[in-house]
């Protein structure tokens, strides 16, 4: 593959530096949701990474989703994921979103998030701490940087 030119490098750099998030609750108990909105407060300050909380999936790059995916929210989650423009990433916050957690074989739960949408990063924990959520975001962005640099070399 040919070395990428300056415009593509600029676009890759801007995607790393400006991840806008949208938060969705797919059947969670709200414990991880409280931690997610806690991570967005001035104490943890996600705006220094360029993250903004957006209301609509059409403006967002990263879908931060909590909760074991119930049969009722399966279609809704899929629809929100499809409304996001490419390129997009998904973070599964909390043990229930990673694998279904203690609700795994429940009669109305379809499991973790990867039964519905492709997941980029898994954040275990019940509830996942805000520091863990930020750590996962930084690791996602750093791995993006590494893969972009690997394409260059």
């Amino acid at each position, binding site marked *: 593959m040919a070395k990428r030119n300056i415009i593509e490098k*600029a*676009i890759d*750099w*801007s*995607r790393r*530096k*400006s991840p806008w998030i949208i938060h969705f609750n797919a059947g969670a108990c709200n414990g991880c949701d409280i931690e997610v909105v806690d991570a967005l407060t*001035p*104490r943890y*300050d996600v*705006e*220094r990474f*360029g993250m903004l*909380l*957006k*209301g*609509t999936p*059409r*403006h967002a*790059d990263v879908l931060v989703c909590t909760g074991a995916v119930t049969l009722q929210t399966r279609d809704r989650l899929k629809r929100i994921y499809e*409304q996001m*423009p*490419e*390129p997009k990433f998904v973070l599964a916050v909390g043990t229930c979103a990673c694998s279904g957690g203690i609700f795994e074989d429940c009669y109305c739960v379809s499991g973790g998030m990867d039964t519905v949408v492709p997941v980029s990063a898994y954040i275990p924990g019940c509830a996942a701490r805000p520091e863990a959520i930020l750590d996962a975001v930084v690791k996602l962005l750093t791995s993006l940087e590494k893969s972009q640099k690997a394409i260059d070399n």
Partner: protein
Amino acid sequence: MALAIFNILVFPGFLFLSVYALALEYVDRKMYARLQNRKGPPWFQPLADFIKLLGKETIIPADVDKPVFKLLPVFTLAAVTSAFLYVPIWGTNSLFPFEGDLIVVLYLLTIPTLTFFLAGWLSNSLYGAIGSVRTVTQLFSYEVPLFMALLSPAILADTWKISGMAEFYQAHPLYILLNLPAFIVAIIAIQGKLERVPFDSPEAETEIVAGSFVEYSGRLFAIFRMAIAAELVVVASLAGAIFFPVFAANPWLGFLIYLLKTLIIVAILAVFKSIMARIRIDQMVMFCWRYLAPLAILQIIINLLLKGVLPI
């Protein structure tokens, strides 16, 4: 002719406006962050946002009016850029001054509000419709006080030319203190024009998902954001030229003074953004018509009476 093209495209036209818009957006976000006792975004953040949005997929809903949908952001940016050509930047003269250009600038600044309304209305979405109706309701509230507040210094100066007003107030600097009510009204109504907190119910994220821009993504949304940031520059420059009549004959010094004036106004707006909450749309209408409009009318009456009395 070549100089005119250079002025329109580079300085102080399109390129300077874009760069300064990103810089003022950074200043606004950084001040807002520091007032919340946190580090804010780095200096390149608005540029990164803009480039990222340009590189995203542009999704256009299936049953909207496609040509209008795609042209609306361009109209907004065009209107705001045209308005910037008539605002004095490095001295008392703007690029193409003519008698009446104050009125033209004010009308050009109404076009973004109408395009926001159309963008939400044509988006074929419930949230867009609510946001667009709120935009127009807000327009009916703040527009009369804002126009009266910006036109009353012109009445005292006996000219409709922004450059003429600037020269008048530079010659008689104490007369600007007579326009203090107009300044108060203007600073408050500017935040309604720019749809900033506390008047940002058209784009109330927690209520109506993104207001008028709910279906815009990618390149179109990037141009809308650039137009919004440029609107901040134009309005701040206009307010600075009218209410802070400090100019210099040397163009470099005058440019530095211009930068200082716009930074002061953006700092005042950032402080308002940090300390206030959003007010409801009916509270906004009541507030503007009960308090701002009478204050602006009072200012016009004062200026009309003083015009016959004061030595000019």
